[in-house]
């Protein structure tokens, strides 16, 4: 690109709406970005100053500053969220950068719960981090503003030079300082003001680019910290769990096909074969010569039909336990009653979760009970299903040998994967020697 083309591009850039809007954004955001962390820090120091402590009354007390910081910490997440909203508004209006608001903070119950909820507000903390990191970004924006301001000022030198420098001969005047963001120089003559003019023009022509760089860093910072929590991470998690869910479904269908192929289909084919042979033995008409063989064949066919029915029923139940139609409580009761080890069941689910969640909870309980029966050598099992903090919590505890290890068998890790497909969690506490406590936490709807 030639010098002329570069110059033309720079001039065009100067008149673009985008450049002016970014300038406006910097004018608003830079003082705000500096003021907020400085005020917060100042508040902490001021509290330290006012709090009595060792070394008073002249010095700030460390204890007091710590107290001030603690107050800032508690206040930070909600206040940071407000400022985050303001920045999102500015970014959307001026920069056209639409950032989705993070989900509203959880509300805890009771004073302690509320405090915990505030302190654990991840989105609030990320907003606070954003406000802190805004400080260097704001300094960068000030630097960009300096291009505009010094550029504009320097361009004016030739115009007022004559007004102030019409001194009588032999009077020695100090040289005039010309400031730029990149350094400073002195001018003493009218010719020097032309240098200042040229420098000013260059600065103003460069200003949009520097401003763009500063706002770009700001945009990036806001996108990263003011949006919903770890959006990219969330997408990755969802991709993984979706892949697992799809694999699960494929594996399940394959298993069903195999069960049908090796089970009911074989039984029905054998049944048809027996009946076919029986039909042959019966003949078209008249006396049946070999009644014993015929009886045997019909008997085998009858048995085969019953076996096929059992097989199909088990398979169907494995796909969807009919007891689940009446809710998790009924289904778990049915499950508990068929357990080899006595099960104590406690259920407190005032609101019914969605069917998908119920099904997952049911299969978790079934698998965990089966595991306990197989490995734990427990005398009793406690199964609890309760609604807690807007989630369904299922716990299965036994007084057995413990040592359940998700790495050893695929059962537990499979459950964990299944649970994670709906953003649930599975926690295992099973020291060698027992007891075992497995907690499954599921959202009320998938």
């Amino acid at each position, binding site marked *: 690109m030639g010098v002329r083309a570069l110059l033309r591009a720079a001039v065009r850039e100067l008149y673009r709406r985008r450049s002016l809007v970014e300038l406006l954004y910097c004018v608003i955001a830079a003082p705000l970005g500096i003021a907020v962390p400085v005020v917060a820090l100042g508040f902490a120091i001021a509290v330290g100053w006012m709090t009595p402590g060792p070394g008073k009354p002249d010095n700030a007390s460390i204890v007091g500053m710590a107290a001030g910081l603690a107050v800032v910490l508690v206040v930070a997440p909600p206040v940071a969220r407000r400022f985050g909203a303001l920045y999102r508004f500015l970014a959307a209006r001026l920069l056209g950068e639409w950032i989705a608001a993070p989900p509203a903070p959880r509300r805890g119950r009771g004073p302690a719960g509320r405090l915990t909820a505030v302190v654990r507000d991840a989105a609030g903390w990320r907003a606070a981090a954003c406000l802190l990191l805004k400080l260097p970004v704001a300094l960068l924006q000030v630097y960009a503003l300096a291009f505009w301001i010094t550029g504009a000022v320097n361009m004016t030198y030739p115009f007022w030079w004559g007004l102030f420098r019409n001194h009588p001969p032999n009077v020695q005047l100090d040289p005039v300082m010309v400031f730029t963001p990149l350094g400073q120089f002195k001018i003493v003559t009218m010719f020097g003001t032309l240098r200042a003019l040229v420098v000013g023009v260059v600065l103003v022509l460069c200003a949009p680019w520097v401003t763009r760089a500063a706002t770009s860093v700001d945009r990036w910072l806001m996108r990263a910290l003011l949006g919903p929590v770890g959006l990219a991470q969330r997408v990755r998690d969802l991709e993984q769990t979706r892949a697992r869910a799809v694999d699960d479904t494929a594996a399940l269908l394959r298993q069903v096909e195999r069960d049908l192929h090796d089970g009911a289909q074989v039984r029905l084919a*054998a049944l048809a074969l027996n009946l076919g*042979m029986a039909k042959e033995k019966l003949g078209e008409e008249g006396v049946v010569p070999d009644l014993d063989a015929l009886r045997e064949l019909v008997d085998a066919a009858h048995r085969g039909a019953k076996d096929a029915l059992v097989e199909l029923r088990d398979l169907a139940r494995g796909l969807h336990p009919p007891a689940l139609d009446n809710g998790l409580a009924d289904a778990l009761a049915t499950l508990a009653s068929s357990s080899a080890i006595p099960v104590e069941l406690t259920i407190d689910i005032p609101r019914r979760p969605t069917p998908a969640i119920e099904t997952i909870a049911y299969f978790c309980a079934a698998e965990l009970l089966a595991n306990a029966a197989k490995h734990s050598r427990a005398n009793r099992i406690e199964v609890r299903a309760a609604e807690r903090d807007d989630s369904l919590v299922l716990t299965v505890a036994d007084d057995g040998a413990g040592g359940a290890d998700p790495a050893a068998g695929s059962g537990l890790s499979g459950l964990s994967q299944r649970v994670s497909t709906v953003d649930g969690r599975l926690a295992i506490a099973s020291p060698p020697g027992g007891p075992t406590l497995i907690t499954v936490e599921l959202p009320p709807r998938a």
Partner: protein
Amino acid sequence: MRVVIAEDAALLREGLIRLLVDRGHEVCAAVSEGGALLAAVAEHRPDVAVVDIRMPPTHTDEGLRAALELRRDHPETGVLILSQYIETRYASRLLEGGAAGVGYLLKERVADVAEFADALARVAAGGTALDPEVVSRLLRASRQAEGLTALTPRERDVLVQMAEGRSNAGIAAGLHVSAGSVEKHVASIFGKLGLPPSEGDNRRVLAVLHYLRS
């Protein structure tokens, strides 16, 4: 007739043995996987092997692979494949080396004992027994083919039976028409499909299949 059975479901295996023994055939061996099938055939040199497609260890197509090996190493032994599904691709692979002494039937066909026994005998004698399902799939796959559309529904019925491996007399009995009219239909089909008329069931099947596949 001397038979080797390869079927991993014990229930069906026993049923097949009983059926064959009942009808006076000799079951030389009944095995449950492909490798054992090859060994048993090498040892007993049976007239025909009844082979389940899906067997251990992979439960996919080891029966078919064993059958293809049998076709190569013991062409004198007929192979009747049993399967719960019809895969036209399997059928084509099986028929690549020729349709003589080859059968491919759905498992449920064993329920029609007499027909199954007939099909088995046909394969043992070097004939062909294709499941009507196989034929209709192949027909469906080549429905667009020119010539097929020119067939009358009756001729199509005859073509299906012909592809299953039946003789003219068998077709006549199956469709309840006279042998003469079957002959007429067959001649007309060959004419419309552009196949040279020839003697012998297998060549007819081969010709028809070749046409259907092309």
